[in-house]
């Protein structure tokens, strides 16, 4: 995960268009969330963690629905 990449994504796409994914490398996926903790407010971090996904996927897509 390159330094500056997440800042560039936030600038280009905005926090409401980012969803968390790992591409099956858990370390880099987890690292991105850790890194975003310092860039984002708690509310915006939740958007990336799950709220954006819950908003765009159909009801029933997630167990908590």
């Amino acid at each position, binding site marked *: 995960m*390159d*330094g500056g990449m997440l800042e560039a994504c936030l600038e280009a796409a905005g926090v409401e268009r980012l969803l968390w994914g790992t591409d099956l490398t858990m370390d880099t996926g*987890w690292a991105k969330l850790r890194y975003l903790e310092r860039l984002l407010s708690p509310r915006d971090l939740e958007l990336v963690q799950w709220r954006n996904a819950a908003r765009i996927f159909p009801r029933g897509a997630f167990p908590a629905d």
Partner: protein
Amino acid sequence: MRIDVNAFLGAYPYRRVPGTSPDGLLQAMARAGIDEAWVSHLPSLFWRQPMEGNAWLYATAAREPRLKPVPALHPGLSGWEGALGEAADRAAPAGRCDPLYYGLDPAGPEMRVLAAACGAAHLPLMMAVRLEDGRQRHPNDRAAELPAAAVRALIRSDEDLRLLITHADRGFIEEVHFGSTPEEAARLWWDVSWIWGAPEDHLETLLGTIGIDRFVFGTGQPLRIPEASVAKVDLLDLAPAPRAAIDSENTRGGLLR
């Protein structure tokens, strides 16, 4: 205690990178729980005379005890013996040479002379396999990656040489380690920055096949976010002793002796 053996200071020529200043690096270290970083001067990696960055590096590290300078050594240019002597005098933890960035044959005569000199000076020599993923490199960033065969040739060329190889992946490490004698392999250390973590977990595989003694904590920051290396080791769920071995004890026992 966590030591990052693979960190940089200064601007990168091929893209905008945040946090390249000493203060920026120290903030990232605090964030990631890193107590000490071995720092190289990034801009001079691309200079015709890379050793001209060493003075700034020493001055910067002298102001901050958490930063340890890793000066550049270019064995194809005059003055490199003096730079090596200065590194030893200033108790630098290692010297670095990136032959493909310097336009040198990575196992050629200049590198073999440097290897012997580092061995005689008891100074570990650091080399990076790459700095960035090939898919993301700038079109003009054409330096080839360090070949595994060159690392094997260098470690074989001098019996006192200790090599610290950064940014190596599993295939590279296996090719060098299993192509070396046990005595040669025991003088090689690998940072974890480019090794895949869970769930495929190349790092866990390598710890089992090669042994934990050969691996040290490194990040490649600020070109890469340090959280990735921390998360990779966290996900191994190691007992305290092997965790400490990777975080700092292998570095202190193997490279700082």
